[in-house]
């Protein structure tokens, strides 16, 4: 298929962009700061899907796109390509996580206990209409405990492995520069586990939820329960030129393990930038589903990973609104030709039908 080059419309195109930006109005630092302060979970979602942790830039992307998430993710991904890669940090392990929320739905008494952390899980979801009438909502302060929680929490999976409840996978340490990277090499199938988990980490939240939900509802062999869910801050540990490893700061991460007892106890895993529980629970379900028999597309890693890539998926979808004149024109030509040939076709059809009938009778005799 080929496309015709088009020209003209430059003024309309320029004015259309102006109209879009005029509707959004002036963007200043105050607006960006307000977005960053008031919508941390939205920033988290954008950063996770963009695969770039940069809260200030995520807020700017949201301001520029007027809150269109796919545009915001695209802006961040595009910005990322302008930046040099300075280093590969030390791998983050669960024991490094400054943990603020850690729960298990499958096991009540877990090492370290259950900590709800910041959540609306057990809250009524009601709009506070009074705010619109001028009565500010001022949150009640948390009543602090006498003692602080431990900064890190033990691993539930490690305890389960030690108990022989789940398989203990041994893996060889991989040099940092040899960790597979889907931003620098193609995603091939069957995907390596590193590619799969990286792809899920940067996957579209909505797409991941849709496919994960389908496996939860029965389009798959996994009946998931949350083994462990964590919200935490992970240190970004890099190497000083003299060799000292230090933390350049922390980033918010979420992590989920999903457990299924379909074939003994099996775990699925997912983690992503930012605090995004829906995404990691759905993605961990998809990780686990991909290890099962594959009666449904959501259990097929190729189907899942290709169709939850937010920039490629949204880009492919919206490219259909751009001019496809060759395709459309050739279709028009074909329709016109059929119409032109219609009288001749009408005369030919009875003859063709008669010939087919004769062939049929001959075969049956």
């Amino acid at each position, binding site marked *: 298929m080929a496309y015709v080059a088009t020209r003209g419309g430059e003024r309309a195109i320029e004015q259309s962009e102006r109209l879009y930006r005029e509707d959004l109005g002036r963007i200043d630092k105050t607006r960006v700061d307000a977005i960053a302060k008031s919508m941390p979970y939205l920033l988290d979602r954008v950063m996770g899907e963009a695969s770039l*942790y*940069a809260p200030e830039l995520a807020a700017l992307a949201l301001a520029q796109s007027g809150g269109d998430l796919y545009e915001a993710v695209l802006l961040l991904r595009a910005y990322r390509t302008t930046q*040099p890669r300075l280093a590969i940090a030390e791998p983050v392990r669960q024991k490094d996580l400054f943990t603020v929320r850690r729960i298990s739905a499958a096991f009540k008494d877990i090492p370290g206990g259950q900590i709800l952390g910041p959540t609306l899980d057990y809250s009524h979801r009601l709009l506070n209409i009074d705010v619109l009438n001028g009565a500010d909502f001022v949150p009640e302060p948390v009543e602090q405990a006498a003692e602080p929680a431990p900064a890190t929490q033990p691993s539930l999976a490690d305890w389960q492995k030690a108990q022989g409840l789940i398989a203990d996978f041994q893996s060889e340490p991989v040099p940092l520069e040899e960790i597979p990277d889907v931003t620098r090499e193609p995603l091939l199938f069957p995907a390596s586990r590193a590619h799969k988990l*990286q792809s899920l980490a940067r996957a579209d939240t909505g797409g991941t939820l849709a496919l994960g939900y389908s496996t939860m509802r029965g389009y798959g062999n996994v009946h998931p329960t949350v083994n462990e869910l964590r919200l935490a801050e992970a240190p970004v540990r890099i190497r000083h030129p*003299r060799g000292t490893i230090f933390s350049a*700061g922390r980033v918010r991460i979420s992590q989920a393990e999903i457990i299924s007892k379909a074939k003994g106890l099996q775990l699925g895993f997912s983690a992503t930038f930012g605090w995004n529980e829906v995404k990691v629970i759905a993605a961990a379900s998809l990780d686990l589903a991909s290890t099962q028999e594959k009666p449904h597309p959501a259990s097929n890693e190729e189907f899942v990973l290709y169709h939850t890539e937010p920039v490629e998926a949204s880009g492919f979808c919206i490219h259909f609104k751009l001019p496809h004149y060759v395709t459309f024109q050739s279709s028009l030509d074909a329709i016109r030709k059929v119409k032109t040939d219609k009288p001749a076709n009408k005369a030919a059809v009875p003859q063709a039908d008669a010939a087919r009938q004769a062939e049929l009778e001959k075969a049956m005799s």
Partner: protein
Amino acid sequence: MNDISPPDAAASRFGHAQTLDILAASEPGAAKAFAETLIDELGAIEVLASRTGIVMLPYVDTVQNTAFHLGEVLVSEAHIRLTGRNIEGYGAVVGRDLEHSMAMAIVDACITAGIGIKAIEAFLASEHHRQRKIDETRLRKVESTRVRMETF
């Protein structure tokens, strides 16, 4: 964490790794203001790097112990050398605050050069205290959400 401080590293109370941890997590305005007080004593400085860039963050899956890339983190870094002396300073912080990473590099170079050590120790102690208080307050709030589920 590793701590490969050179013999002349003078910030004795804090090792090199902890010093860098504290500087990176310090309040940016305070770090910049403090570095300003040291910069004149350093003499001429050659800036080897002052830029933003990205750091790939690997993560280890808890199920199969597979290391994978979680994504990239925007950081700013600064690398300086004291002109005519074999002394360098380095700073890197999450985010795009080049002045913060430069302030960190200046303090790092001062420590290696043995300049302003008492003041640096005092700054690090103050920042360390502030950072610990923030974390402790956060963790007290987190602890108050600890739940003991009962089944019946």
